Structure formats: C-alpha cells, structure tokens
C-alpha cells in the first residue's frame, strides 16, 4: 500500500518498534485516542461481522476456525538456515491437512488480520492525513482479490472510505486496489544469505530511502494491532507471517509455501531491473551492468552471496541471462567470477561437440593463467558461439566476453592467492564513467562506504 502524502506512518511504527518512549509523541497520542474514540468503531463490526455473515449464508461449513491445523513450532534454535518450510522456529503456520480440503478459506475468515490491514491503512492515512490509499496486490491470489474487493466495498458502505472514482469528500479517503507486478522470490537470495548469517532479512526501505511496500504493510498491521492491543504489543514477538499477499489477509494456504506449486498466475517481473534499481542506480553506471550467466549457473557454485550483497561495499552488477542478476562488489575479481562460471560450464558440457568440449576445457586452462591470452580467448569465443551444437556451448563464453568488454580494469589486476576482497584495497569510483567522475566532485576515499 502507498500513502500519497509525505509524512508516513512508518515513522510512528518505527519509533514504536524501536522501543522508544513514545508517550509524548503526538501521533501516538492520536493513535491511542483513536482506539477509544468512536471514529473507527464501525470498522470492526463492518469488517468482522457483516462480511463474515454474508459469506456464511452461502457456505456455513467454510467458516470453521482453523485452530486444529495450527501448531506451535519450537522456538529454541534461532533461524536455522534451510530448515523445513513450516519449521521456522517461533512462528505460527497453518498446516493444511487432508481432512480440510480448503484450509485457506477457513483461515481467511477466522483470522482478524484481514480486517487489520484495511483498518491499519485507514488509521495510517488518518494519521498522516493522506487523501488516497493504494493497495497493491499480486495476481497470484485471486481469492485475496475477491475478499479485498468485498471488504473495500464494505468499508465504503460504512462511510469510512470511498473506493475511487469520486471526488474525495472530507474524511472520506479514496481506496485503490491495484495490480502489483511482483516477484514473490525477489528477496529470496538476500533472505537466504541473511539466514545463513543468522539474521532475519527484512527490507525496510528502498534505494530512495522510502519504506518499501511490504514495510508499509507491516506498519499498517502494526498500527491496527496497536490500536486494539495497546502499545505493549510491539515488544512481544508477533506471529510471523507466511508469504506475500497470502498473509495480508491471513490466508494460510498450504500451497503458497516457497518452492511449491502455487495456485493462480505467476508474474515474473524484470527482476534484474528492480535489483539494479535497488542496489546500484546511484553507485553503478549502466556500463557496469554485465549479463554474464544464466540463473542456474549463478546459483551453483561458490558465489560470494552474502558478501556481495552486503551494503558495505559498493555494489556492481554482473551476470544474468533471464531475470537473474548477481550483484557483486567492486572488490570482487571479475576474472575469478568468470573463471568460476567457466568451470561450471566445463563441468556441464556434455562432450558431444568439439568446440564446447575442448573449448570450455581450454578456456578454463587459459583463464587459470595469471594473464589471459586475450586474442586467443576472443577467437575461442567466436568459434564456440558459432560452431557449438547447443546453447550451452554457444553461451558458455559470454562471461569472458563481458569481462573483456566491461571489466577491462580487472584484467590488469594481479591475481591474488587469497580472498579477493581482503588483499586488494577498493578502488572507489573505478566503475564510474568519466563524465560522472568529473561532475561528482571529490571522490570518496578508497575503502570508504
């Protein structure tokens, strides 16, 4: 969701979440007053009671609470990486069972969060005096959309907001439900890296410093819970949610788990563009973008994931064939990255045709040498892409091509025996274009950021 006016509810929620004494914060005071006031009291009845009753007319069996299918996972080990999907410690997950063919529906209507979202949004909009409220929903969950539409209609009927198309009356905010083209797995690599490092990954702000959509959703829910349960709730560990839009409305569909087949449509956004925008628009000129490897390749071998996406070093994108980008640090040696990829292709080559079988092997040998034989590598690149039978051989030399084209300064680097990022000082601004370097004023000190 997105609020269109400048002050945002996230500042309040962040203050609350940070455990600050917010008793003097005027906004919090207004939130507290709100909880006792009668302004939002219709919301509870409308959103909770009426919608439920309306659906119960159609199929009363669908609204049984889903308590039997919930179980508490032990919270003893903290975020062990790669644990089972539903085995995350300290979280509530709805477990679909065979006896319940439609657990998602029961979960929808038994959970209060479906109303909390709209409620929190309205609170937030009221706090920041926003005139328009947007909900962005991916198309993967048509059932979410149906529920949200009916809930928005209920909100509108209650006079709390107006679902677009009309000029805004005072105190009647416009609610928009919009399609969101989103990639459910956009943060997966980062989340995995964070899990491996023992942290939880949660992106709060985008590259412009504004809160992300998901963070605003969290803030809205927090606001609603705050109103219901008082300020102490933010210190308790709250229920951890499942995935994406499903838990916007508290849907516990078993099928939405990560890696499983999900119902509905799946939109794959141009993730590379998004990742680049998030990580590297300011730090990285467009010429440093390197399409080097398909995703399968980039996932297989020793990619320096956690290091490369850490915010400390200046990001720099490499790789990707379709919708996958590997963002690397400028302290990464692109020769080593390319060699790593070529080793992968050498391993993957089936051996049928000469250019790919011999070419990948010779390329690895040539690239292991301290100094690359560039003319020979270029010739090999041309022949492999011209004469190989299949796409693997034809594309295998793309990393080399890109390194020779875009990362020429790495070719001059001396090969390092140890960890690449530790032995060579960072060359700040090395990937900036000359014009940019001139206009940007004094360059940051090496090793900065």
């Amino acid at each position, binding site marked *: 969701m997105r609020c269109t006016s400048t002050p945002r509810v996230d500042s309040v929620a962040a203050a609350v979440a940070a455990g600050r004494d917010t008793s003097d914060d005027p906004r919090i005071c207004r939130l507290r007053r709100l909880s006792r006031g009668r302004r939002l009291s219709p919301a509870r009845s409308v959103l909770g009671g009426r919608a439920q009753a309306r659906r119960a007319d159609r199929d009363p069996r669908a609204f049984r609470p889903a308590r039997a299918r919930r179980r508490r996972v032990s919270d003893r080990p903290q975020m062990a990486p790669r644990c089972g999907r539903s085995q995350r410690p300290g979280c509530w997950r709805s477990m679909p069972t065979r006896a319940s063919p439609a657990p998602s529906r029961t979960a929808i209507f038994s959970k209060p969060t479906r109303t909390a979202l709209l409620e929190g949004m309205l609170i937030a909009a009221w706090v920041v005096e926003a005139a328009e409220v947007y909900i962005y929903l991916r198309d993967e969950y048509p059932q979410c959309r149906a529920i949200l539409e009916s809930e928005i209609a209920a909100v509108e009927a209650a006079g709390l907001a107006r679902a677009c198309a009309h000029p805004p009356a005072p105190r009647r905010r416009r609610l928009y439900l919009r399609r969101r083209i989103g990639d459910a797995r956009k943060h997966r690599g980062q989340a995995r890296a964070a899990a491996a490092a023992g942290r939880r990954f949660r992106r709060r702000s985008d590259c412009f410093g504004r809160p992300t959509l998901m963070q605003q959703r969290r803030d809205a829910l927090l606001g609603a819970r705050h109103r219901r349960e008082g300020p102490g709730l933010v210190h308790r560990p709250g229920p951890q949610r499942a995935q994406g839009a499903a838990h916007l409305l508290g849907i516990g569909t078993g099928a939405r788990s990560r890696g499983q087949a999900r119902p509905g449509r799946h939109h794959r956004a141009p993730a590379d563009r998004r990742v680049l925008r998030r990580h590297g628009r300011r730090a990285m000129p467009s010429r440093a973008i390197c399409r080097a490897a398909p995703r399968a390749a980039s996932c297989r071998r020793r990619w320096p994931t956690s290091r490369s996406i850490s915010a400390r070093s200046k990001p720099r994108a490499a790789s990707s064939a379709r919708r996958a980008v590997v963002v690397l640090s400028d302290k990464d040696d692109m020769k080593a990255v390319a060699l790593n990829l070529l080793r992968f292709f*050498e*391993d*993957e*080559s*089936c*051996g*049928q*045709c*000469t*250019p790919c*079988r*011999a*070419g*990948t*092997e*010779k390329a690895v*040998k*040539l690239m292991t040498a301290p100094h690359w*034989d560039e003319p*020979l590598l270029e*010739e*090999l690149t*041309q*022949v492999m*892409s*011209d*004469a*190989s*039978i299949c796409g693997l051989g*034809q594309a295998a030399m793309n990393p080399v091509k890109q390194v020779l084209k875009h990362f020429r300064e790495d070719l001059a680097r001396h090969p390092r025996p140890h960890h690449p990022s530790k032995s060579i000082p960072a060359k700040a601004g090395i990937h900036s274009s000359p014009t940019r370097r001139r206009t940007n004023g004094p360059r940051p000190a090496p090793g900065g950021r």
Partner: protein
Amino acid sequence: MGPGLRRVADDQWDLRMTEPIRFTLDGAEVEAAPGETIWQVADRQGVEIPHLCWLPKPGYRADGNCRACMVEIEGERVLAASCVRQPIPGMKVQTASERAKFSRKLVFELLIGDQPDRAVAHDPNSRLWQWADRLEVSDSRFPRHAAPAPDRSHPAMAVQLDACIQCNLCVRACREVQVNDVIGMAARGHHEKIVFDFDDPMGNSTCVACGECVQACPTGALMPATLVDAQWRLHQRARARGRQRVPLLRRRLPADLQDQGRPHRRGRRPGRAGQSQPALRQGPLRLRLCRITRTG
C-alpha cells in the same frame, strides 16, 4: 529449427519427397536429391569440406559432432554442420566464407592441441593430420590435455586414446555398422572417452575383433597392433642410432619388420609402393583384415 522453418518443411514435404531441392551453394544454383546433405552436394560439386566424424561410406550415419565441416547459411545465427544439415529450397550456403573457414581452422587447432606431436604421432598420415595439412594448421596455441595411458591388451588392435578426438565414429562402426555394440561413449565433457563394454580393457571385452573401428578411426587412436609394434621397433632402432625424433610411421617398413606376426593378412600391405593412393585414405593404412579371424 523455429516454427516458421518447420512449417515450410511441412508444407513442402510431398514436394521434397519427389523433386530435387534447389538451393545456392557458393553462389551457384545446385540441386540436391531428397535426403541429401549439404556435404554430399558439395562433394558432388567438387567443393571440399573438411570432415572427421563423417565417413562417406555405406552404413555410416552422419553425427555432426566434430564441427569440422561447418558452413555458413545465410540468415542463420550460427554456422551449420554440413554433414548432417539437409538443404531446403532457396537456402543460400557459403562453404568458404571467412567465418566458416575460421571456425573450421580453430576446431582443428583445438583437436590437434590434444594430439601427440606429429613427429611422434601414432599415425601421422591419419585423416586428421591430412586435413590439418590442408587447412595449414600445424600446431596449437592451446594448453594440452592430460593424455590417457594406452591400452595394449588386445592382440590385434592397439588403443591409444591420447589421439582420440571423441568423434564417435568407432562407436557407430561397432554399434550401427557391425552391430556388435561393444564400444560406447562414457563420461561427460572433456572426460568423455570411448569404452569397451564396461570400461574393460579391449582384450578382456566382448570385442570380436572385426576391425571396423580401426578402419573408421580418423586419428590413429585405434590401430592395428602389428603396425604399432612395428613402429615401436622402428622407433627403438632409430633411438639406438642416436636420433631423438623420428617419424614413427613410414610408408615402407623395413623388410625385417614387414611380415612378423601376420599370417592371415590379405590385401595390400601397408604402404606398398607403386599403388596410387586416393587423395584422402579412409582408414589409417587401408589395411584389410583377414576375413576369417578379422585380424591383421
């Protein structure tokens, strides 16, 4: 093949079964019989295209894996292997474009980089080396691959896989021509190699010693054992005389080495003088094997 191309082929299926296919080969309008490949048409027209894994003999299927016969087809992104590619009407084929020639040449350079040096090659007159001569590829700039050990377990045939180019011809010879199915391809990538049965030594395998693979091998990786032995003795003799590098295979063997251990040999002796050799010999030495024992 994209859907458009496939549709064209489907539309003209009846046509192609009955009528010759007209296409352009090096600027000249040529006709191909249905089922004929570009290489065969070019061969008929007198255009020479290198080939290693393709053996123009009855029973041998074209495989198109050595990529020594690449030609350029107008409008296509990559080159095509002429030994397997069949022309379609209106196709414009360039057999001698710079791109195709460059590609073939580097393929030979890649292959020769892993061969033993020509001075000590098992068969310096193999088809591989002859084609390398024609393409003026004499040495390779690429680093060398570790050579596997020779397998001399078979009494009649020597397996020296350091000269193997994984062209698959011996596999097709064994499996499809002679239908013995002893030789197979094992492993992947540059670890790929031919194996006998379950990677047994050739002498312990179910090989019936028909010699078809030896005839088919374009490099001398599979050779008659007698020749290898003769080479070896010749080599030792030259070494004893103080010459370090001698070509291992001579066209004419010394008289005392000629008839050893070959009671059943029929046909021509290796390199008998006075015979007109074809421009490219098909086997390593055109050695005919005995029809009874199928040994040399």
